[in-house]
């Protein structure tokens, strides 16, 4: 059973992180294309049309893979997470379906016209097509992040004991979920940073090779400006996400910061350390006083709750959950007198379900099992601690890189700034690393839950044979590796061939 859960998680992690190789470039490059084409329409300078067409070719190679890998995730909720689909499909499915209706149709219908419509459409109409592709892609991010935001902060829904599932009670609470809002703007900003870095780095490469200088300078300039705005916004909005965590997902914040104890406010920030999960402490700590309290609570007197306190609270919730589960069993068997008991403890039902990992019956859990479940009610701290810090460090580097890039575009001797151009080129993979680390923080940080406080990951899977997992994972590794090699080859060839200057 454990192996089934772990392989299901592994498969989802592989396919989701692979999908997110292509998504950020689509999110950002679509707007960069719009900007380049807008400049063409406004100035009538054909160089901007060349920019749009070249970067559009890159966009097309990438977009294809983004769609492909997205369908995988839609299938996977059903193939590997059948109990999850039943338990929360009522709520979770809604933003997904709206994503299809509002966003996917928009971006996919117009993307064909982007490539095929140059000769058939007026300049303004083609520009509008480009806009709609960008809008569609970004709206897609909105809806999927509303869904993911709900997984982390399950508002606007209630458990129905008769149907044994979560049911939507408020559509507006679902879409105005503060976690979803913060996540959306932060994630699309990360896409804008990624695309800007990609364009910046490749433009830098052309300048280093003394090729297509005019073309490269203009690409560089657009990327630098957009990238600076994006990297500032991604850091600010990341901060907003962190602040929201403090309000609604304290355990994730505590884990990211390796906050074992609730410090006296304002808490200090741990820059460096080796979190030790078993000892519940961080070895070799280097801290900055007051910094965590100020950033995470935006106050000097509010505390950041520590993991030890959270574990103790969760232990109480687990015991409450056991009562809720017992009442639920009797209620389902027809004993309606249990309703008031159930209602009193139902908010902690999810915590009771954490015990399913140790005993099927939940209500017969031993003190040792309860203790184990409490310790495992928080995620593993070290991966989160380090993913977060590397991501933030990279974020700071992006601000520096784009700031300097903006400053040097005003110089006529930009192509002689060889060191800086090289830095830009070698920085290309970094936003991808930052983005994937960010997703590790978001998703690994939600463990052991698929729906925070409601549904444990352990219970969310499909009851399928382990061979099916081997089959799926093997298939993905083969297909995804091959497709990646082909895609990278085509990208590289397109870049080396360079743009067609009219």
């Amino acid at each position, binding site marked *: 059973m454990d192996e089934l859960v772990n392989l299901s998680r592994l498969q989802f992690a592989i396919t989701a992180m692979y999908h997110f190789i292509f998504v950020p470039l689509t999110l950002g490059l679509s707007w960069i294309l719009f900007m380049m084409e807008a400049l063409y329409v406004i100035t009538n300078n054909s160089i901007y049309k060349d920019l749009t067409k070249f970067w559009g070719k890159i966009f097309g190679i990438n977009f294809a893979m983004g769609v*492909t890998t997205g369908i995988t995730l839609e299938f996977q909720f059903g193939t590997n997470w059948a109990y999850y689909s039943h338990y929360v499909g009522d709520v979770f499915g809604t933003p997904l*379906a709206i994503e299809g209706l509002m966003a996917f149709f928009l971006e996919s*219908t117009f993307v064909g016209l982007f490539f095929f419509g140059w000769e058939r*459409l007026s300049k303004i109409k083609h520009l509008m097509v480009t806009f709609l592709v960008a809008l569609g892609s970004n709206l897609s991010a909105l809806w999927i992040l509303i869904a993911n935001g709900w997984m982390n902060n399950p508002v606007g829904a209630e458990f129905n004991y008769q149907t044994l599932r979560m049911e939507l009670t408020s559509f507006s609470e679902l879409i105005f979920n503060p976690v979803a809002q913060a996540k959306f703007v932060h994630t699309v900003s990360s896409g804008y940073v990624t695309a800007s870095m990609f364009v910046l780095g490749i433009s830098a490469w052309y300048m280093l090779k003394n090729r297509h200088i005019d073309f490269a300078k203009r690409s560089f300039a657009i990327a630098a400006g957009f990238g600076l705005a994006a990297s500032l916004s991604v850091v600010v909005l990341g901060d907003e996400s962190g602040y929201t965590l403090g309000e609604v997902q304290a355990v994730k914040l505590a884990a990211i910061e390796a906050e074992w104890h609730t410090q006296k406010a304002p808490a200090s920030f741990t820059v460096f350390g080796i979190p030790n999960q078993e000892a519940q402490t961080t070895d070799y700590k280097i801290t900055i006083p007051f910094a965590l309290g100020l950033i995470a609570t935006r106050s000097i007197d509010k505390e950041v709750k520590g993991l030890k306190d959270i574990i103790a609270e969760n232990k109480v919730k687990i015991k409450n959950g056991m009562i809720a589960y017992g009442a639920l069993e009797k209620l389902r068997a027809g004993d309606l007198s249990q309703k008031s008991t159930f209602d009193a403890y139902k908010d902690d039902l999810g915590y009771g379900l954490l015990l399913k990992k140790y005993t099927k019956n939940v209500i017969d859990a031993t003190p040792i099992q309860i203790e184990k479940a409490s310790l495992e009610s928080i995620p593993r701290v070290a991966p989160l601690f380090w993913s977060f810090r590397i991501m933030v460090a990279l974020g700071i580097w992006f601000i520096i890189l784009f700031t300097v890039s903006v400053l040097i575009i005003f110089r006529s001797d930009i192509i002689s700034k060889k060191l800086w151009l090289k830095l830009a080129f070698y920085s290309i993979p970094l936003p991808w690393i930052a983005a994937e680390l960010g997703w590790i923080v978001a998703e690994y940080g939600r463990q052991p839950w698929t729906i925070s406080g409601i549904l444990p990951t352990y219970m969310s899977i499909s009851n399928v044979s382990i061979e099916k997992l081997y089959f799926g994972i093997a298939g993905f590794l083969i297909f995804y590796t091959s497709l990646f090699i082909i895609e990278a080859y085509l990208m590289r060839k397109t870049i080396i061939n360079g743009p067609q200057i009219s």
Partner: protein
Amino acid sequence: MFDIIILQYIWWGLMITLLIGFTITDGFDMGVAILLPFIAKSDIQRRVVINTIGATWEGNQVWLITAIAGLLASFPKVYATIFSSLYIIAFLVLFCLFLRPVGFDYRSKLTNPTWRQCWDIGLFIGGFIPSFLFGVILGNMFLGFPFYFDKWQVLFNDVSFFDLFSPFAILIGCMSSTFLALHGANWLNLKADGIIRQRARKISKYLALLFIILWLTGGYSLMHINGFSLFNNQITMYKGAWLNNFIQHKNLFLFIPITILSIMVNLFLQKKSPFLAWIQSVITIFLVFITTAIAYFPFMLPSSLDVSQSLTLYNASSSYKTLNSMLIAVIIFLPLILLYTSWVYKVLKGRISEDKIHNSKSYWY
């Protein structure tokens, strides 16, 4: 506003509508891909065929994606049961769908003939296998899957991969691919030029005949396989039950000759008016789906293990609020989608000919 039961009927209908939308649009994409190796013999002919669908296939595929997301939202247990029970088939469909976007976009980017040949085979697989497997899935939905939900609503299924390929399921699979190939041929007749058009019309006759034979055989089989019936809140399973709805409303049997007539009219119109012929093909799609839906109503997924576990539109839907919110979303966005989709097709009006691809400096796959 509405009673939940009205919403359940509406969503049962909407699911079928989304699948009809998929078949009308991505149906001809898959059909054209199936025909690609047979109807196009040279590289330029292959490019003509690919470019009849190149600009619009991605938007068309969204009907499938939205149908699946809609299923998760409106009938989550059905979504969970189909995908986890048909695990391997679902993944096979997925792997074949992978070949499509890369096939279209990457194929003509290199001139190497082996590269292009490989992607042509990839595009064929991407059209043929999913359309075949969709038919296999449909066939099995009539036969029922062996599944049940325990008292905690945990799904158990006893589906074995090879059991899914019974003669009836394979028959429906072949029927499905043939049907989409015919719809694809109608599209080629409308959008391609010269020899491709001619071949499309010629192959339509064979495809139409084959489809009618397979479809009628399928219907005949329904008389002999164990079907499911819902009456007085009781589900029973017995031979020929799938034809109950027809037997109780004998006029509905007329859908069968009307569908065949529609196919005949389609063939008749092909030379004179390719556009009307394609519209007639669309009408045939509606008729085939409606006929199937009449037989299947009100089921969503019968259980061959325990009939009382069968999923119907009554017992497997989402909550009132979800169905209602989603219905509002559909009412707002579906007309918009139809509007801008037709605008895109209007912009891309005109035939694809070998000359256009040879001479033009504009973008072609």
